[in-house]
């Protein structure tokens, strides 16, 4: 559905400003309520799903803010809790817990690096930044203009250095880095306007690509040495604009570092300004350090309240993270002919986030408290295929390989052994570690490098893994203290069903499911333990377990 938007970005901002002024009372309302109002308003006559039941909500919130699942005990406790605002309290609890920062770091790592390698310092940087609730604009500046000498900040530089790693005899991929910076931090994919204007998106011009490109191309990847404990990026002196020609129209252009669809950074004038911070030393042949850092100047303007696309992008992505679909889709193709599904709402979120100084934790908490977030994934009666972009039903979202591994170990009761390293006495065979499981789950479930993980995506590889992998089947063998051990000790089929469903799917079984299990166990009475293992396997391999619904 493409609504033609004749106005350019600026005009739309003016319109929004007028809207905000007229809805003076609106501004005072908590954001969560405004969100729901706008969602409901847009959906008009469409049927909405009911609120998610406690179990679905619990599991969803845990995955989103903790990265794993609650234990059967914790589930039972939450379900039994009669307090009115228990959901809000749960959200507060999860967001305040240490695992929140780790889960955010994990999610952002997947989003920003798209499975292109792994680096401990980069992960630490992300985790620590989220732990300190660092504003997103600050993080962006630290990533796009890294301080490689600071022990706490050099990890951020891996975003760039990884992309500048040479592969075989191929040229350093400056265009790739340019494209990713545009996509991930501003929601614009400028890939197709390097050599000519974009052929299908009229907003994206050659100058937009090249303004970013010139900044990155001005850098050189250096190996770690001396003060630099990691690979780092060295900037050269830049005093001239970069000239380019369109291969289609032969029109020429020139630009210095520039924010795509935004402002250009003025270049220093060697005649007037001091251009060297540390002048080059002809005797020692040491290159100088220029005073003008294109990366720093560009990053300052890109990650700024003055760049509307910056706030818009992160608001869109955070919405996608929690709801499974951005207002602008694809997430990296924001332009005037691809309008948001809820333009007013997206503008609101962008503005509010900017006003709150890009505090992501604040935004996430607000969104988690909306009815929109807390809707069921069960379709309302009569609605066969509600349009996803109306958010009338919660969308099933993908679980990362890391979340699956964590949930799997928790569900099978092997967490203490594998993650904690305890309770191995009397256990035969190899001692599996958390790393073993992570490695195996990543190999089975993570996408190939540079493939964004955006949707629920069952693969052949994952199916084979679940069917035949040693680790999977090992976890389902009875062992002291694990799930199979607990259920094998129970004689009552009803109790078995309770235990299995609460532990694995984080919900109580319905009557039909209890009956089914009873029938199954009766049939396999002679090999009950094995049968229990197979049943648990079926649950762990089911879509219900595999998705974040």
């Amino acid at each position, binding site marked *: 559905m493409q609504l033609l938007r004749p106005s350019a970005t600026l005009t739309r901002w003016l319109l929004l400003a007028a809207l905000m002024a007229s809805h003076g009372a609106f501004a005072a309302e908590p954001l969560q309520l405004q969100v729901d109002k706008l969602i409901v308003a847009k959906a008009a006559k469409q049927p909405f799903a009911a609120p998610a039941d406690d179990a679905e909500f619990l599991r969803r919130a845990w995955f989103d803010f903790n990265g794993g699942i609650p234990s059967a005990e914790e589930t039972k406790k939450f379900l039994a809790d009669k307090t009115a605002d228990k959901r809000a309290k749960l959200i507060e609890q999860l967001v305040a817990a240490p695992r929140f920062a780790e889960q955010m770091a994990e999610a952002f790592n997947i989003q920003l690096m798209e499975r292109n390698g792994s680096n401990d310092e980069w992960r630490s940087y992300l985790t620590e930044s989220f732990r300190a609730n660092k504003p997103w604009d600050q993080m962006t500046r630290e990533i796009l203009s890294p301080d490689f000498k600071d022990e706490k900040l050099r990890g951020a530089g891996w975003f760039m250095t990884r992309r500048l790693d040479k*592969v*075989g*005899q*191929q040229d350093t991929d400056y265009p790739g880095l340019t494209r990713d910076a545009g996509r991930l931090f501003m929601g614009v994919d400028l*890939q*197709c306007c*390097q050599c000519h204007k974009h052929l*299908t998106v009229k907003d994206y011009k050659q100058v937009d690509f090249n303004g970013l490109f010139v900044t990155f191309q001005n850098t050189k990847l250096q190996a770690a040495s001396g003060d630099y404990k990691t690979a780092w990026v060295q900037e050269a002196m830049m005093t001239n604009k970069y000239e380019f020609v369109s291969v289609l129209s032969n029109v020429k252009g020139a630009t210095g570092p520039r924010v795509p669809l935004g402002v250009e950074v003025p270049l220093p004038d060697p005649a007037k300004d001091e251009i060297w911070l540390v002048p080059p030393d002809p005797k020692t042949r040491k290159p100088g350090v220029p005073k003008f850092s294109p990366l720093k100047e560009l990053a300052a303007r890109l990650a700024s309240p003055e760049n509307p696309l910056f706030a818009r992008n992160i608001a869109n992505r955070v919405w996608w993270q929690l709801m499974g679909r951005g207002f602008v889709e694809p997430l990296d193709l924001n332009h005037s002919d691809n309008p948001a599904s809820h333009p007013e709402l997206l503008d609101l979120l962008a503005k509010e986030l900017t006003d709150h100084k890009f505090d992501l934790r604040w935004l996430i908490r607000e969104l988690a408290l909306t009815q929109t977030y807390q809707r069921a*994934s*069960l*379709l309302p009666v009569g609605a066969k*295929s509600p349009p996803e972009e109306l958010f009338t039903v919660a969308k*099933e979202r993908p679980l990362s390989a890391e979340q699956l591994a964590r949930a799997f170990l928790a569900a099978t009761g092997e967490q203490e052994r594998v993650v904690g390293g305890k309770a191995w006495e009397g256990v035969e065979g190899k001692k599996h570690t958390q790393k073993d499981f992570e490695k195996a789950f990543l*190999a*089975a479930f993570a*996408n*190939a490098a540079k*493939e964004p993980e955006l949707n*629920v*995506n*069952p*693969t*052949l*590889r*994952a*199916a*084979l*893994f679940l*069917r*035949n*992998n*040693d680790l999977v*089947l090992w976890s389902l063998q009875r062992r002291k203290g694990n799930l199979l051990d607990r259920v094998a000790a129970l004689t009552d089929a009803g109790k078995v069903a309770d235990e299995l469903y609460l532990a694995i799917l984080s919900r109580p079984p319905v009557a*039909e*499911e209890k009956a*089914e299990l009873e029938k*199954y166990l009766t049939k396999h009475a002679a090999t009950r333990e*094995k049968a229990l293992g*197979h*049943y648990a*396997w*079926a*649950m762990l*391999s*089911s*879509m*219900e377990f*595999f*998705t974040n*619904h």
Partner: protein
Amino acid sequence: MNPLCKPWEHATSRRQFLGASAGALAFGALGGMISPQAAEAMRKQEKQVLFVWLDGGMSQLESWDPKPNTEFGGPFRTIKTSVPGTHFSELMPQCAKQAHRLCVVRNIATKDNAHSSGVARIQRGDPKNRGVAYPFFGSSIAKLMGPTASKLPAYVWVKPGSGGFKAEDAGFLGPKYGSLAFGDGKPPEDLLRHASLTVEEDEERNELRELLNQRYTAQRRPTFTEASSFVFDSARELMKRADVFDTTKLPAKELDRYGRTEIGQHMMVARNMLEAGVRFVKVGSYGWDTHGDNFNASASLVPKFDRAFAAIIEDLAATGLLDHTLVIAMSEFGRTPRINGHVGRDHWPEAWSIAMAGCGVKAGAVVGATNALGTDVKDKGHDIGAVFHTWFKALGIDSKKVEYDNNSQPLPLAHDDMEAIKEALV
């Protein structure tokens, strides 16, 4: 390490994979085929492809286009082939006997003389630059033709080294069209049914899983569950045919005919896969970049390829598969006529050869020629784009009309300005 032992001769340690109900593998009377039913299905004429990739650049002067007794000809003799007037290097005695089934194109002239860019460029067909990574030929066929009725994965790669799911080949088509690689001819992780399970147990627990999914999806959007069922089904099909991929079950007599070498063994696995119905099988061989000591190296390498390739041609012909299987053998370029400082040959995309056979290709043909010294093509050469057009045509795909749809960006299958090589086609 004992240098005299060949790694591929080690028995691979395997878990029992078919459990108690392991069916006896049926060895048909026809040239060692695995299952008569599979052969029958194949006679139903579904088109398939065998793509042999000799990574590094096999020397055309020591194989398809020898120049004996010339300045750059090297030490080897030539031999007559089954096509009167055509000679191959003495290093290819078996292929010489199969020449009447082959189509050798001797005037290939391409642009890239580097491996890291050349390998991908050649396998992607080096089309006009449209800012996207084009798929390798296998991914392309996987997309355009999909799996055969066998439901086995459409694009399988038998190679030395690592296996697994290789998404890179697929380019803009997306990882779904990547290859399923069998490293060292072995199946990817987790292909074989776990030793602790019987077939019945496996079937039952999967039925349970489907049941749970049905209940889950009863009130939800069906898309994801459908996808899940599909991949679990594919997994089952693949597991059922695990015998096709098991190199320990290859009969000794066959191994001798293909050669007890890495490429021989992999070529046998490839044959089994084609017979079982895999749409596109790529066989990879590495180490052909003979910059140094090219002649002793070729003397060691070329006969191994020769034996394996001739054997599979023979077998495909005997079973009737050759009629609808397009066979290709090539590298990313040829090798220099000039012999360099360490008695080797360097890269030579300027004039080299590829060999084809089977579906849609003219049998017993030699297309084009190089000059007397082999330094250049006579008249005009054919770039890889033309070769791609030739392959598509041979498979019955009109590469001038059919296009890819990349998120509503239409893209030609191969280089716009090039044409199929008429003389190579039936």
